[in-house]
């Protein structure tokens, strides 16, 4: 790890939860430019909640989240919206707008935030859809395509404004292993081609070992980060039994 690199996301003393119930306490971590950072943990430990705090949808109880060096916690509504526009988010089910075609879904941010002409926008939308291997499906409605395609379309929409930072919520959940692997390859390709920093929330071990540069593991019981580091390294050398067990089970499964 090169700690001298500039962090793109910085989390300090973050305590989060909902309805007065604390989920995680005193979290501290940073994500550096160009990294693929994975937030790992078992179901229900608060991975998705953490993600929603990072992207500014929820307000934390305490602590500080800085994205591109600016606090998303203390920003007012307009500043927050401005900040949100600079990163992309891909949701579990794609979260495509059901009343718009795929192309229109991708065009939406372009229409709102750029002064491009109608043709240029359409061209750009088709280009982004091609990037996620969805040529030929541009004029389909979201209800007419499969789950994996929806996720990829969601990714295309998230990348419409060429953000420097991408968040993925459970990219491979509910997908078959082949589609899942394809998505992993797509993520790696994006990083390679565009240099995008990517933060992924997942519990799929296959993906972790394929894409992750660095992971943090969240633990439900201690409400804190139980391990941080390179996945293969953690798998072998972690001093925590539970972490090794978690990461190695996949090995057993693979065999």
């Amino acid at each position, binding site marked *: 790890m090169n700690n001298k690199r500039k962090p793109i996301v910085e989390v300090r003393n973050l305590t989060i939860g909902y309805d007065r119930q604390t989920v995680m306490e005193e979290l501290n971590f940073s994500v550096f430019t160009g990294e693929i950072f994975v937030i790992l943990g078992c179901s229900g430990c608060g991975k998705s909640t953490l993600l929603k705090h990072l992207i500014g949808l929820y307000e934390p109880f305490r602590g500080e989240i800085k994205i591109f060096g600016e606090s998303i916690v203390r920003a007012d509504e307009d500043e927050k919206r401005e900040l949100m526009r600079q990163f992309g988010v891909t949701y579990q089910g794609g979260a495509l707008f059901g*009343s*718009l*075609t795929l192309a*229109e879904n991708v065009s939406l941010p372009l229409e709102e935030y750029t002064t491009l002409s109608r043709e240029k926008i359409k061209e750009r939308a088709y280009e982004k859809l091609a990037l996620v291997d969805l040529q030929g499906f541009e004029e389909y409605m979201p209800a007419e395509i499969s789950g994996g395609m929806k996720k990829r379309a969601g990714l295309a929409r998230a990348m419409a404004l060429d953000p420097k930072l991408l968040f993925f919520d459970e990219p491979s959940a509910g997908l078959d292993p082949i589609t899942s692997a394809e998505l992993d390859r797509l993520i790696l390709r994006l990083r390679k081609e565009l240099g995008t920093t990517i933060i992924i929330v997942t519990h799929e071990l296959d993906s972790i070992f394929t894409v992750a540069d660095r992971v943090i593991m969240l633990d439900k019981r201690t409400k804190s980060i139980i391990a941080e580091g390179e996945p293969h390294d953690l798998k072998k050398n972690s001093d925590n039994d539970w972490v090794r067990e978690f990461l190695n089970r996949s090995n057993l499964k693979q065999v």
Partner: protein
Amino acid sequence: MVEANKFRLGLFVLIGVVLFLACLFVFGLSDMFTKKAHFVSVFRESVQGLNIGSSVKYKGVPVGTVSKISILVDEKLILVEMDVDLSFFATSKSQVEGNLLGKFYNFCRDERAKGLRCRLEYAGITGLKFVEIDYFAQPSEPIAIPRPDYLRKDVFYVPSSPGVFTDILKLINVSLERISKIDFENLSDQMGSTLKEMKKIVSDPKLKKAIDQLNNMSGNLEKSSESIAKVLTEKRLKQIFARVEDSLKSLDSLAKRITVQLGQAKLPATSTAFREAAESVNDTRQMLGNTLMKLDQAIDALTELVNYLNDDPSSLLKGKKKPKIKFTEPEKK
């Protein structure tokens, strides 16, 4: 994109707007294009049952509506303003163009002189009223309530005529109130006692005697005046006068002497007593005369009352000498 059916949507909005405008037009925007005359009338009676929007009829034709009802505080009169639609008045004359309103007002002015009045009429049994304009008055009849001088210049004043049923309720109420005020018991008691008294007086034997005496007295008086007339001739009168003069002179001297003597004697007291006695007799006679006169008056009044009641029993209800309501025959035209 889930698109709207643009044709259907457009049709929906267009037809809706057209319907809306049509409704507005039908419900009264057409009013704006009709010529209206403004009539004003003033009523003394209650206008209970008349509302804004009540119809105004000319000989039964609904020609307009009541537009405002207000109260003239000083005179305690009700001011009723009406809008009359000119289009109901067709004319055979060809020159309808030009100042239609002015001509209409001229027409109305002529008709008012001929007895055009407005009157409140009941519309069915609901208690609602409308204003009927017709020739309720004789052509020469004066206007009961003159036009209030502060009315706007551009309104036409139609005098009102009291309604057919006007104040019928009020009349009954007043009568009933009056009747209820009469103390019948007391009245009959008093009458009974009066009659008894009268009977007593009439049947008093003293009265009979007094009347007989009066008769005698008058007879004597007649005789004496006759004999006096016989005795008194001019010559004798002169003699008498001369004698009287002498007597008077001697009387005078006598009186002087007597006065002197009387001054010494105690006669004044005696004469005062005598005078009083004489006066009291006189009083009694006068009182008797008065009583008889009053009795006579009372009997007259009773007779008159009985006759009056015989003629017009209803006056017991209505009170005496109320002018009767005149029904004027509406002039047919």
